[in-house]
Each structure stands twice: as C-alpha cells, then as structure tokens.
C-alpha cells in the first residue's frame, strides 16, 4: 500500500504539490489525471524518491521515503518499484538485453548466467521477441515503450509507476500498451500508479482515478464515478472542453491583454 499524507513540493518559488493526500491500496491501479504542470509526474517522482518532498509523508508498506537515511534503506525501498519513464529513458549505449538486465545487478542477487533468460522472459511478457541484441535507436516508439516496460518489470517489483505510458503513441499502440498494463496487473499482481492525460487509457486501466489540479487533488473515484462526476472542473477535463472552470489560455498574450486592460481601467 502506498499512502501519501500532506505532500508538498516546490521548485524555487513555484509550488507544484500543495498538500497531496492519496492512498493506493495493494493490488489496485490508481490513475492520476490532470493537465500539464499540475504535479502528476512530480508526485510520481516523489513516490520513488527522485524528488524529496518539502513536507509530508509517503509511506510504502510501513516505510516512509522521507525518513530513509542509509543507502541500504533507500535501495531496499527502491527495489520494490519499477518505473516506466515517459520517453522510455532507455540507455542508448546498451543493447535491449543489457537495458533490461541493468537493474538486476543492483537490485537483486540473480546470478549473471540467468540474465539472458530474464531478458527474454520480460520481453515475452510485453509481447516482444528476438530484439535482445538491438540498440534502442533501432526500435520504433512503441517497441521502445515496451522494452522500457520490460526493464521496469525485470526485477519483479511489487509496485509499478507509469509516467504517461501512452503519450506519443498512435491510438492502436496506445491500446496495446493499455492491454499490457492490464495483463501485467493480472499476471504479476502488482500495485500500480499510472500518470496520464489520456482519458481512454485512464478508464481502461484504472481501478480508481485521482484528478490533480494545481498541485491538489480535486476528486478520487472509480472510473464510473469520474465519468459521471458532478464536479465542473473534473467534468471539463475528462470531456476535454476548452470552456469551464479550468482556465487555459488559448493565446499566451490574452492573459497579458486582460491584465493590461484591468490596469488601464484602474488608472
């Protein structure tokens, strides 16, 4: 179980997370939705320890990431997680097999002789075969995502964090990735957090969905509850409407013009 309590994170003067309280139950897939810059990915990075929260707690199976001190504690904590990066973040100097097995050396005691087998098994789980010796540059966007997913599951994590798994993929490949997430969920029985703004993906893979807005959680509910929400901001986002309580500038200068107009009015 992952439990976040009052997580606050700022970068300089910019507050990105303004007090996140979220509980992800074991075995469920929590989908986090929200517009760009609302803090979804930052939250995910706080969960795995890439960013340290300014305040608040993130407790995973009784371990609070904010209180871990020694390298051993941190590495024990990270061993529980697989992380799928938005662009895959595959090491381009290594082959696919080396990418997949990279974490085994540091996260597990698996002997070197078994690496090749694990790479093939992980690739099979994401529907790929005979690409072990390819370099990432030789793969298509969808294949890169799958290899990155294979890398994330190679060390058999209990938790998988997906950062925008379908972004940049065509609709069919997006659905293939959604199916893979569901398959992995069934086969590996992992707990997952999926950050996305692809609503089709959110409804398909999510046990529950949390809507982030400006560093806060607006609503948490099942896909059905989110689909039929009465909250106007959540409704605007899930239906993808430009008009509504969430103000997005159509043109950058509109906000400046409005501000100048207001100032002129005062003068």
């Amino acid at each position, binding site marked *: 179980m992952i439990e976040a309590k009052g997580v606050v994170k700022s970068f300089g003067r910019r507050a990105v997370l303004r007090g996140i309280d979220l509980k992800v139950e074991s075995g469920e897939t929590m989908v986090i939705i929200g517009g760009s810059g609302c803090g979804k990915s930052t939250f995910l990075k706080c969960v795995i*320890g*890439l960013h340290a929260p300014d305040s608040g707690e993130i407790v995973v199976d009784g371990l609070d990431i904010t209180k871990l001190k020694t390298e051993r504690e941190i590495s024990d904590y990270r*061993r529980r997680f697989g992380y799928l*990066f938005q*662009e895959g973040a595959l*090491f*381009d100097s290594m082959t696919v097999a080396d990418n997949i097995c990279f974490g085994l050396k*540091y*996260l597990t005691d698996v002997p070197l002789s078994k690496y090749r087998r694990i790479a093939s098994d992980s690739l099979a789980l994401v529907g790929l075969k005979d690409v072990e010796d390819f370099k990432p540059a030789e793969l298509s966007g969808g294949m890169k995502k799958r290899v990155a997913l294979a890398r994330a599951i190679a060390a058999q994590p209990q938790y998988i964090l997906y950062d925008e798994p379908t972004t940049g993929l065509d609709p069919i490949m997006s659905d293939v990735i959604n199916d893979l997430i569901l398959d992995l969920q069934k086969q590996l029985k992992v707990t997952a957090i999926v950050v996305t703004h692809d609503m089709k993906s959110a409804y398909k893979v999510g046990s529950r969905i949390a809507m982030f807005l400006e560093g806060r959680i607006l609503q948490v509910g099942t896909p059905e509850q989110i689909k039929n929400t009465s909250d106007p901001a959540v409704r605007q986002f899930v239906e993808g409407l430009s008009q509504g309580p969430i103000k997005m500038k159509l043109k950058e200068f509109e906000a400046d013009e409005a501000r100048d107009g207001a100032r002129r009015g005062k003068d």
Partner: protein
Amino acid sequence: MNAVLEALFGGFGKELLEAAESMGHFVFLVRSTFLWMFRAKIEWRQTLIQMARIGVDSLPVTAMTMFFTGMVLALQSGATTKHFFNVPLFIGTVVSFSIVMELGPVLTAIVVSGRAGAAIAAELGTMKVTEQIDALYTLGTDPVRYLVIPRLLAFLSVLPLLTVVSDFTGIVGGLFVARVKYDIPTVVYWHDIIDNMSVKHFVHGFLKTFVFAFLVSMTSCYKGVTTRGGAEGVGKATTQAVVISMTLVLVIDYFATAMLNALGIT
C-alpha cells in the same frame, strides 16, 4: 535611472548568486564522488571503457599538437639564438624545458578537455535531459557511482600517460626542426636535454597532470549531470564544460607551479 541601476545590479546579483550556487553544487558533487569511491565497488568495466575513449581516441590529436608545438619552439628558439649569437644554441634545452614543465601538461589537458571533456558533458547532458540519469536511480544505482567515478578515474590514469607521450612527441618535433632546419646533430640535441634536465623537472610537469585531470573530468561531469532544457541545454553545457575546463587549467597551472616551486620541485 533607478530602473537602469536596478536592472544592472539585479542582473549582477542574480549572476553572482547563480555562480555561488553552482560552486556549492560542484563541491557537493566532488564530496559525494569521494564518498562513493570508498563506499561502493568501483565500476571497473566502465572505467576501462572510459580509459579507452579518453586515452586511445585522444592520442593522435594530442601527439600531433605536441609534435608541431615542439617544432615551432625549436624554430623560434633557433631563430632567436641565431639572431643574438649567430648560431642556434640550446634548442634541445629550450624545447624540453618548455614542454616537460609547462606546455606538455597544459596543452594536453586543454586538447583532451576539448575532445573528451566535451564528449563527457554532451553524453551526460543528453542522459540527463532524456531522464536516463533518473532511470539509473530507479534501477538501484547512483549516477555518481556509475558515471562520474569511472570518468574521474579514467582521466586520472590516462591524462598523465598521454602527457608523457605528448612530452616525447614534442621533443621529437623539436629534434626534427633542429636537425632539418638548423643542421644540429641528434647527439647534440639530446645532450642539451640530458645535461640540463633532471627527474625533478619531469616530476614537476607530471604532478600537474593529476590536478588537470581532476579539474577537467569533474567540470565536464558536473556540467553534464546538471544540464537543463533539451538540445539547447546540452549544447550550452558542452560549451561551458570546455570553456571552464580550459580556463581552470590555465589559472590553476599558475598556482600549482607556484606551489611546486615553493616545495622545491622545480
């Protein structure tokens, strides 16, 4: 007027603050590099790969640079002594002293920073902006351990060796001009060197290469791992890594020389 002053001092203050912040981060990186070096196993495979990249790949360019530097030193010293004494004198001494104590270590460090230092900053910078450095964390290792330490160790072991080769090629370049242009016998040229140089002079230059290796590798790694902002950021980081490394080599060379002189290694 106030606005102009404010803009001026505001900008200056910001720059100053950023420079101080960068310095702090650099010191922090150096500290964690040394901590990791004693805390965890060294990535020897990565270190060997880096040694090959930095050493083997830089060898032709450093050798050629020093060969021509030796040639021009011989040409200039021969012309000057010929002008004053009617005969070219002490060409071997001038070339060997200049190269072994100063130009060999400094020029090799500068050439290697332009070649290998830039490559390190660009590679680590690209890894940073494509989240590969974050991926290292999530896969259970630390970028300092996996990326920085092998590069530092590779620089510390390869730059002194490259400098020795550079010293030799520079002296041979000088011999070539002394022989062809001024008709000085090879034996005389070598005697000029052996009679006037001692091991101390060589040690003086050799010790400085370790300081340069540390400066160039850490600056390049620092600029790489702190890259921000996509392709433009990688370009900026690479340029800054080279410019800062070269400047540091030249500035620190003075202080290192002064210190070695004070210690009597001269």
